[in-house]
């Protein structure tokens, strides 16, 4: 009997190629109209044709994502550290943070637009809102999950509260912190696109609505493709950073 071929790292590209070929053939055989489901080749063509326009929109969305993500990151880190150090702050703020997550984004997005106009600000704010929660939850959980024995040992060693925070709690929280960052990275692009959807001058979200309204489904798919690539890219950057910060396998 023949042994299984060890595909290893090839399994993903192969499965992807199979999917694309199957999709292309099905569209060709069934003669599906382009406005229903465009063939991959049509999507590629649309991507090439609209590339300069798409890139302009991508730049805007990416700017919103980066500004929102970094703002959320700074806010989350500061708030987490404050909440861990000052218990009252945690008790006051935590319920509001959960409530902020229960209001649907598609209600907040138009509301933000009414308040802050059609510019970039309401979009950045939505990204901040989307990213803030997972980063903070991860970090706070990492900071507060401790071994009681280790705490006592540190007490015997006469560690000061700030030493305990910086030398033990923060490094210990890194795996959970990065889990939160990765979730936030994955959500951030979707958040930006959704808020552009409601009303914007530029951005992948507005390109999406325009393509949809004009039945340019292939262009719509091309737009989605860029959203996927952007999200993956952010996720990859965070994963790479994580490996740099946490070199130890055992921590993951």
């Amino acid at each position: 009997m023949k042994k299984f071929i060890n595909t290893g790292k090839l399994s993903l590209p192969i499965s992807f190629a199979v999917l694309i070929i199957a999709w292309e053939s099905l569209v060709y055989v069934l003669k599906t109209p382009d406005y229903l489901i465009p063939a991959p080749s049509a999507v590629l063509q649309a991507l090439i044709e609209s590339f300069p326009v798409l890139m302009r929109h991508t730049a805007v969305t990416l700017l919103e994502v980066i500004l929102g993500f970094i703002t959320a990151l700074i806010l989350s880190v500061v708030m987490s550290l404050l909440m861990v150090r000052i218990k009252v702050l945690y008790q006051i703020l935590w319920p509001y943070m959960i409530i902020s997550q229960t209001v649907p984004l598609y209600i907040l997005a138009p509301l933000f637009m009414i308040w802050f106009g059609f510019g970039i600000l309401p979009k950045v704010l939505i990204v901040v809102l989307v990213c803030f929660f997972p980063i903070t939850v991860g970090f706070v959980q990492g900071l507060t999950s401790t071994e009681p024995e280790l705490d006592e040992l540190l007490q015997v060693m006469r560690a000061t509260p700030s030493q305990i925070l910086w030398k033990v709690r923060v490094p210990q929280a890194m795996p959970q912190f990065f889990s939160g960052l990765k979730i936030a990275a994955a959500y951030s692009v979707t958040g930006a696109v959704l808020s552009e959807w409601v009303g914007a001058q530029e951005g992948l979200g507005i390109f999406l609505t325009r393509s949809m309204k004009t039945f340019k489904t292939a262009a719509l798919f091309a737009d989605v493709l860029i959203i996927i690539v952007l999200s993956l890219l952010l996720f990859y950057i965070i994963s790479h950073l994580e490996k740099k910060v946490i070199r130890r396998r055992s921590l993951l």
Partner: protein
Amino acid sequence: MELAVDIVNLCKSFTLNNKELKVLENVNLQAEAGKFISIIGPSGCGKSTLFRTIAGLEKEYTGSVIVNGNDIRQSRPYIAYMLQKDLLLPWRNVRKNIVLPLELSGKLKNTDTGFLEKMISEFGLEDFVEAYPDELSGGMRQRVALLRTWLMEGSIMLLDEPFGALDALTRKNIQDWLLEIWEKHRKTVLFITHDIEEAIYLSDEVYVMSPRPGKIIENININFGRPRRRDIVYTSLFIDYKRWLMSALQV
């Protein structure tokens, strides 16, 4: 002889479900400086609570605990403390784990690197300084934890079942190794163990505690010379000590 630890009529109780639970009852223990003293007793007899009290982690008690001539209520003592769990920080390599107590007390910068290197090689860790805790065996991790404890401030070491989680063979090796190091430095060691033979082999003095509430029910001197040799375990004196301690523990 100077007393490193002097415990007089120590009583300690916890409140559990509104009921008072006596853990330690009139514990008296006098440890001379530079001695190796073991405490054995059944599980839950309050041995660890005794250590936690000496280390300043338990504040509510009656009686007195004097460390190096000072009541610990007045001045918190410098104590080196080690538990069965090694509690090494997984994101720090061996060297960085070891120096943690020096780093926390701000003395790392003034510490002679030659001294550090000497201690590292004395503890047999020179080939592992760059390794991370998850790359080490249980015995090795305990050595690292012990060296970290050694570098904590204070001339008194409280070792709470440090070898409890190790297999028999590793345990014998690490006992010999601990004796060798201890005989060089002669810090005062209080050592909790379940293992009667371990207690006799290592110690100058063995205290036996009763089941809860913990009392000292026996206190014997172990009259073997130093440095100790492994073959004392075959002597009739060793067997006598063992029989004596076992009957005190009622096992």
